[in-house]
């Protein structure tokens, strides 16, 4: 199940194709065409980001005069200005704290609930599952005002805990949906064996089920991480103090302040993007194998 990628590669290189010579030339040409298409789209996907990167080294007046062009010098003035005014460092720490905590909380409670819902039979099970899954279709933001007043009475305004709980809650339907789907396709032999060995429900969940769930947990984590990291609506309304802002809210402030200074804006964007891009590049392998495992049930 986890090795779906390797066998294909083996088959591809096997000389099983009929009519080797002519087909080889044809596929060679076609392969070049495919490569070309892929590179074209890569340019489209990456081009705008490259423009930002180049722009971040240019002088603002220069950008206004000539929107596309190379930097005249590799000065870091823009970066210095962006870093100093935007306090992106603080926002970054907040974003990491809030995102990691809420994704962890969400995945933990969802895994437990999904396990119970897919393995145990009890009264109201189907109803409970339906209640959770139907949350997939609820536009949670429509409840923002009531959440605000609830938080106000609980003293959770301007608190990162409040934000974490809210994000965790809004990720539950999707997480349960994915994990339950995964559990449905998972054979029960190991769990039965553990049961025979006398493990209780808690032990079994932690030492048997959680490791088996790993691919599904990876998918859920990935799909919760980015939207939480990127959300700006909740912190905008629920947070008050500058030192608790997350990156997106901080950036909108930054955008307001530097609307006319494109060069500094570009530098700020690059600062905000680079760490994420690095994390993503390293995590791609896990993300993709998780997805593959999740989809190829």
């Amino acid at each position: 199940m986890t090795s779906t990628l390797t066998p294909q590669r083996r088959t591809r290189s096997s000389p099983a194709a009929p009519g080797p010579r002519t087909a080889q030339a044809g596929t060679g040409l076609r392969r070049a065409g495919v490569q070309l298409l892929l590179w074209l789209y890569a340019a489209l996907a990456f081009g705008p980001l490259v423009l930002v990167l180049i722009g971040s080294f240019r002088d603002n007046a220069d950008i206004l005069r000539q929107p596309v062009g190379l930097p005249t010098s590799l000065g870091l003035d823009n970066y210095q200005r962006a870093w100093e005014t935007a306090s992106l460092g603080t926002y970054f720490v907040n974003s990491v704290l809030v995102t990691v905590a809420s994704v962890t909380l969400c995945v933990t409670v969802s895994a437990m609930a999904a396990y119970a819902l897919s393995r145990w039979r009890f009264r109201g099970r189907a109803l409970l599952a339906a209640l959770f899954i139907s949350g997939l279709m609820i536009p949670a933001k429509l409840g923002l005002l009531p959440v605000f007043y609830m938080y106000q009475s609980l003293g959770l305004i301007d608190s990162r805990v409040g934000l974490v709980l809210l994000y965790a809650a809004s990720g539950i339907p999707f997480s349960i949906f994915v994990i339950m789907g995964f559990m449905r396709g998972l054979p029960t032999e190991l769990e039965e064996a553990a049961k025979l060995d006398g493990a209780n429900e808690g032990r079994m969940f932690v030492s048997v089920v959680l490791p088996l769930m790993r691919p599904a947990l990876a998918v859920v984590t990935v799909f919760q991480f980015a939207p939480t990291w990127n959300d700006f609506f909740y912190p905008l309304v629920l947070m008050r103090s500058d030192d608790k802002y997350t990156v997106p809210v901080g950036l909108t402030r930054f955008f307001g302040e530097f609307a006319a200074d494109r060069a500094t804006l570009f530098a700020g964007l690059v600062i905000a993007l680079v760490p994420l891009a690095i994390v993503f590049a390293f995590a791609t392998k896990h993300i993709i194998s998780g997805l593959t495992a999740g989809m190829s049930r």
Partner: protein
Amino acid sequence: MTSGPRRPARYRAGRTGLGWIAGFTLPALLLYSLLIVVPLVTAFYYGFFHWEGTQRAGFAGLGNYQEVLTRYPLGDEIPVALWHNVLFFVGTMAIQNTVGLGLAVLLYRNPRCKRFFQTVFSLPYLISPLIVGYLWSLLLSPSFGPVNYVLQSVGLDSWARPWLGDPDTALPVLILVNAWQWIGGPMLIFLAALGGIPRELEEAAALDGASSARAFWSVRFPLLMPAVGVITVLTFIGCFNIFDLVYALGGSDGGPGGAMDVLGLLYYRTAFEGGTNAIGESSALAMMIFVLIFGVAIVLERLLRRREVAS
């Protein structure tokens, strides 16, 4: 292992203690109910009252609903915004998902540098939609944007346009920018689904003499249907909830002549730019939007599931 009737996965019926059941389901249930379900029910309740700023005044019955549906120009803007959501959904399905599928097939056939391409194609997904919006409005700016500048410098002057300022191009640009950001999602899902299809099936078709295109459409595509189903439901929910990107591209009015006005913006305007009774009116509007999205999503899900079972 993947084909054939699955054995029922559940076991030991009725033997799990109530305490375990509660312990495993209650944390999720509590969080979810308190912060998602209760607020929506509260919003429903709010919608029946007249509000003076943040103070609740008299019971209004269906007054807020009537006000929202009949007040000029709000009443006229609702169907328009809904229509834009529909167009946005259709356009996104047509562009983002077909291009996503195309890229997935290309990558599947041609695994060289696969990881690199996957990463690059999915990169925009990391950027907050709000920032994507600001970024593209800078790039598409008629006076200082590189897009028009490039078009003009390669002699395509007539192609240069005030992209986001022209009611005819604003919505298509919105669809394209959105697709640019999210293309990685469908691509990865399709790629994973393609990887899960047994190789033998296609080889069998090839032995039967089917062309590779025929083999794709007759053998592989039907097996991608579950993935299409998942993507359709996710796209629908995403498209009807869209807010950040449109807000950044066109402001809270929804761009030129309201060409990009969508339900999310309409709710934002009533709730946060509305008058004294904003809470009452926006809650009523929220309920109508909720019923619409929820209803359609359930029907959509049913349809797709039936199809999946039938195939």
